[in-house]
């Protein structure tokens, strides 16, 4: 059969970035920002995230919290990402981001309140303009594109420094149209935004291979005409470098980028899930050997920057932080039932008064009984 002569129209490569290997040894000189202070701070924050997760799962098991999505194994991605944002940048997270929330200044008691079924949990005290936790998959990426447009618009109007919008997601989310649509627009409009995909290999029971036929998630950005990088997501230095670099470029007007952070979900999908139904114990056991905290810990010890004594001090300190957050959470007074009307509209329309009164009276009746 006749074969047409083909001419190469385009080609692409996807680079992979790592500074600390699986044993925690440097594979190349660390970047300047990775000072001893910064590294030990990251170690602390990752351990705090892990502690919050651990307590949240236990609270769920004893019926005091609802369904909770642990970030176990992904601490490096969350902490590095949150750490790379400036206070004025806007974070548009998905739900598995306890680590990044801590970096953004979200209080542990707010995180507990949210998963404990209290809507006040999403009214973050600190990052007032960040978007709340997003449960429907991938929708936050389009919101982030809108946020990025607004940031660019404001910048052009006022000559204030350009701020950046950051959207996070899992790899499963990259199967959705919203993801492609957001990337496409971000590319065309050169929006100041960064996509960080937490590729933890599993979207509930669907493995990465069953989710997409691409070799990498990063290459999905090629079709949108935006730069992409794959990083070792268990190496906090690599994630931090990639996010900082992408933020820097976005901030200087060079447009969006996608970062695929390779990691592994060491926990069940949520406390409502049982991962042993669909993945092998052997795979899980292997993944534990590459987890991010041990990796950084090994590196720091090899540099004489960390020791058992320092670790014990830190654990004591973190335990206190956790206890006081738990106390704050537990001492919150419950929200009154009528609060379900309080934020529906800027001002409750008169047509709602009857329902409001009915609920208030029912509550008063229930409390008398």
């Amino acid at each position: 059969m006749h074969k047409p002569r083909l001419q190469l129209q385009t080609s692409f490569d996807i680079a992979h970035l790592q500074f600390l290997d699986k044993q925690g040894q440097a594979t190349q000189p660390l970047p300047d920002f990775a000072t001893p202070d910064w590294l030990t701070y990251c170690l602390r924050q990752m351990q705090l995230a892990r502690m919050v997760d651990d307590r949240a799962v236990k609270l769920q098991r004893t019926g005091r919290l609802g369904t909770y999505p642990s970030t176990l194994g992904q601490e490096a991605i969350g902490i590095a990402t949150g750490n790379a944002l400036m206070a004025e940048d806007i974070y548009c997270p998905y739900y598995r981001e306890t680590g990044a929330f801590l970096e953004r200044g979200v209080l542990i008691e707010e995180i507990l309140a949210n998963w404990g079924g209290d809507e006040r949990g999403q009214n973050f005290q600190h990052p007032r303009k960040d978007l709340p936790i997003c449960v429907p998959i991938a929708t936050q990426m389009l919101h982030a594109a809108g946020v990025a447009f607004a940031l660019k618009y404001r910048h052009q109007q006022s000559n204030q420094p350009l701020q950046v919008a950051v959207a996070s997601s899992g790899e499963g989310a990259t199967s959705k149209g919203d993801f492609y649509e957001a990337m496409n627009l971000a590319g065309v409009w050169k929006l100041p935004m960064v996509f960080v995909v937490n590729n933890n290999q599993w979207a509930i029971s669907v493995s990465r291979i069953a989710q997409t036929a691409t070799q990498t998630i990063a290459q999905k950005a090629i079709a949108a005409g935006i730069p992409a990088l794959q990083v070792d997501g268990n190496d906090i230095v690599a994630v931090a470098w990639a996010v900082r670099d992408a933020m820097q470029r976005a901030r200087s007007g060079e447009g969006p980028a996608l970062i695929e952070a390779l990691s592994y979900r060491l926990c069940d999908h949520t406390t409502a899930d049982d991962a042993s139904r669909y993945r092998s114990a052997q795979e899980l056991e292997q993944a534990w050997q590459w987890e991010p905290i041990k990796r950084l810990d090994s590196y720091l010890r090899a540099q004489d920057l960390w020791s058992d004594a320092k670790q014990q001090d830190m654990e004591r300190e973190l335990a206190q932080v956790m206890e006081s957050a738990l106390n704050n959470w537990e001492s919150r007074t419950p929200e009154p039932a009528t609060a379900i009307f309080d934020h529906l509209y800027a001002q409750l329309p008169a047509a709602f008064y009857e329902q409001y009164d009915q609920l208030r009276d029912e509550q008063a009746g229930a409390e008398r009984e």
Partner: protein
Amino acid sequence: MSEQAQTAQEHRPITLVEAVTQALAYALKNDPEVVVFGQDIGANGGVFRATDGLQKTFGADRVLDTPLAETMIAGIAVGMATQGLKPVAEFQFMGFIYPGLDHILSHAARMRNRTRGRLSCPIVYRAPYGGGIHAPEHHSESTEALFAHIPGLRVVVPSSPARAYGLLLAAIADPDPVLFLEPKRIYRAARQPVPDNGEALPLDSAFVLREGTDLTLIAWGASVKETLAAADLLASHGIEAEVIDPATLKPLDIHSIIDSLEKTRRCVVVHEAARFGGLGAEIAAQIQEYAFDLLDAPVQRVTGYDTVMPYYQLENTYLPGVERILAGARAALDYVRDPGREGGQ
């Protein structure tokens, strides 16, 4: 299987979610055109285990895990159905159907009409729905009215294991698209023996769950539970309530409701969905259109509030419970027409 073992199997009481599995297995076994797909329905057996074991039995080319994309799930069902397959698609939660709405509304529901009957969409879109299980945000939606509003769709909600089995088989056999909403709060609340005999229950017909002469209570899905409990309490006070489960919410069997009103003349509609534009409004409107003269009292609605379904701490104050249903019943029963207006000037 010995006859005895078979009988034992048929009499093993099963839950609503197991009845769904049983119906899917029956359909897969007896109709090679049936394919079942959705997120996490294969190895994991679905997040509520509604498809537990099906992939093992029927293979990964009839029970398919899809990538995470509802637009795709809703859309491929349309394409499959036009070629004679009978897709049964699972949305993981009702709150995640919305990306698929374009395909359901713009295509599945009108393919037959658009092609003057040349092509059709015999699809079943399944989803767990409703609140009351302490789930995170978006996992407790009851937006059945949104779908009932779409011309060309059927909306079916079972309220017991037997009805889940029979109605799901009917939905799969039905030549048109059906939105099959499974009340997850009662997925495991009760058991009953459901013979696996492939017998479908009729769509578009209401079920009278309890007979009575004083009051008609209408409810579907999980709210049937509280409604029956309210009827029991009323009975202990000498009031006999008839309880009707429309089961198919669109098209609605208004005739069974009117037949009941001929006896009772008073009616309460219960649903956990928001009140405004909810199906209680449709039922009340149809009753007054067709049976205004039968009514001794305005139709009462006992519903969720017109608010966002709250996170779980306030979920129970949102969901209509027995107390609120009883208050609705009292309002219907105590209503007396203003005599001053009777025989007016």
